């Protein structure tokens, strides 16, 4: 191979890999991401049935009930609206009534959110940013709750 051919072969191969990777990234971005929605968004019909998304807000006080087989029912609220959630499994340590929570899962036809994952945070003073934003939108945000310890 001449110098030029060698260079072309290398550049061509690099171009091909970059092209394939970009395609892969775009494909993954179109299908593998989860939107964050507040209970108000869900009640307003922004989430389609069966769509995988994140639901966040506060755990409504008095809404936690447990069933056999580690099934937990609770409700997530942003002050304006409430969405009922069902989850099977161990809840994170910081899961409490009135605490901020982020859950991942799908909405069924009856409007029940079936969570596959309930996320916990390291710090009890830390409020997921999405949750605090959603609460602010509903005017239920008390600033001292999210400020530093």
């Amino acid at each position, binding site marked *: 191979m001449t110098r030029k051919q060698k260079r072309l072969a290398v550049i061509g191969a690099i171009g091909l890999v970059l092209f394939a990777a970009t395609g892969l990234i775009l494909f993954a*971005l179109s299908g593998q991401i989860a939107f964050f929605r507040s209970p108000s968004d869900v009640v307003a019909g922004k989430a389609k049935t069966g769509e995988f998304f994140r639901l966040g807000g506060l755990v409504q006080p008095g809404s936690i009930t447990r069933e056999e087989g580690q099934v937990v029912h609770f409700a997530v609220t942003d002050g304006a609206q409430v969405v009922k959630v069902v989850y099977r499994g161990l809840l994170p340590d910081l899961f409490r009534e009135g605490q901020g929570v982020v859950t991942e899962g799908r909405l069924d036809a009856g409007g029940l959110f079936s969570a596959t994952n309930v996320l916990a945070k390291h710090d009890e003073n830390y409020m997921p940013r999405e949750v605090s934003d959603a609460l602010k939108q509903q005017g239920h945000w008390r600033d001292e709750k999210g400020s530093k310890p």
Partner: protein
Amino acid sequence: MIVEAGHFALVLAFAVSLFQASVPLWGALRGDAVLARLASRAAIAQFLLVALAFAALTYAYLGSDFSVANVFQNSHSLKPLLYKWSGVWGNHEGSMLLWVLILALFGAAVAVFSRNLAEDVLGATLAVQAMIAAAFIAFLIFTSNPFVRMSEPPFEGRDLNPVLQDPGLAIHPPLLYLGYVGFSIVFSFAIAGLLLGRVDAAFARMVRPWTLVAWIALTLGIAMGSYWAYYELGWGGFWFWDPVENASLMPWLTGTALLHSAIVMEKRAALKTWTILLAILTFSLSLLGTFLVRSGVLTSVHAFAVDPERGLFILMILIVFIGGSFALFAARAGAMESGALFAPISREGALVFNNLFLSVATLAVLTGTLYPLLLEALTGAKISVGAPFFNLTVVPLMVPLFLAIPIGQKLAWKRGDLAGALSRLWVSAIAGLMGAALLVYSLRGGPVVALLGIALGLYLVLGALDDLLDRALRGGNAQILNRLFGIPRSLVAMTLAHAGVGLMVIGIAATAFETEKIISMKPGETTSLGAYSLTLEAIGPESGPNYHSIVARFSLRDGAGPIAELKPSKRVYTGRQMPTSEVARHRYGLSEIYLAIGETSEGGRADLRAYDKPFVLLIWLGPLLMSLAGLLSLSDRRIRVGAPHRRIRASTPQPAE
């Protein structure tokens, strides 16, 4: 008093770093060796001052001096000594001080170990290092001062976040910082090289050991963090594609690429521009990571309570350093001579292949990490990019790279023989597949992808070791041992590091064969778990120094009888009234039984999450082997820091400094 001295030392360190950033640089650029030489002493002085500040903060923590706001917020007088000590960096201010300490440490280390460098290179490098230090010390002093006193000192502290009260935290952040702050010195070398217009094979020679040191620490730090998350968070997972994990993975990927491209630059004087670019990119990604973690712009399990002012400050540092270095690169890169030619199929070609895939994988991780920020800024929509995205993009990029590793190892420089390399590898490939099939058969079923993953891992291990055996056996059976020990250490290191990748791949693929059980149990009940049976014996309260806990006592039996007692628990720390789970594990071979309990309700039931995880330890043993291999390579005489002049220097007495 000591706390104020620490504060004062930090301010002094800032002044020293300003001096170090300007005067020696001027000397280096004007060819004034006397001025350039001042950099070494300044770097050592700067390090001593920062170390003094760090020692002062540690003193305040060890003595539980709650008049210092930082200590009050993150410590407790009843906390065990180890956690009082590790609590120094278990918070924003302290961890930034550690960041600066390590930055100064690398500057001082270069000043001490690289005395044989040309004065202008050393001067300019340390000056660039001091610019970074000045920026971050200013950040500490103006936005995150750890030495602030409280007007009315309280009697008791608020305790360290319980999740962070673990021996893992004593080691994980320092290692991680040693890694990604360590790349700062490589960045400084690159900028100095560009400024002075001297980027050659000698440059690669002096940069490689430092790259290696940072890479070893980063590898260990990431593996340690992953292991810690595995046993502390109680989910049994080892990698969550959390933005903060990604922030440490990105410099690791480009750092690994840099490690490989520096070899080409050193041996063949090729890929100069690219190597410099990688050096700049790696540290830029470290800075980006610091920004992402410290500013709180991303939702992450690692987020401390955040302050927008700090985020803005780091963003400014980020823009100045990344922007400045890329501008300099753009202006100077064209002037570098292009290096020696090589055929696409050659050792150089293989290393370019490695660099290409590692860089593209970095691009994928970067996209996934920053896309939510971008989308929210543009449209206001909030999204999360999680494991599915990264698995779909990074895994397909890693597979061809891993397949190519043993091939690349066998190609010659300049012009390689692909057919020859492949013919030597088919044995490894077939052995790998057969081993995987056998393993999966013994573990009863499992997805095909996992089988291929295990085969890939075995192929990597065998393909790497094959190289060593081949060298030892070449030319008859006599003196095999002699030949084996005659193999250069850096070559053995390469082989071991690649085998480490293989072990990790096996460990990750084997997670497909784990058994998970989520059940609720009463004392006296028994459940099966893999080949074992698990009985809940009792549930009861216990107390620790600064917490109360509810402990569930399980006994684990196999066919023959009881083999272990496991006590997972739920703790509530009195300082913050915050609950945490403590998991219990039983190791057998490279596998583990893993138990975590959830709610314990009235009637004495405990919610249990139990796993049987085959070969799970390989996930961390692989990276451990990779870093040990790095250490071995570092000990190779040929690339040791400052090797050529060391012996002569050591024999002449040095004046006290």
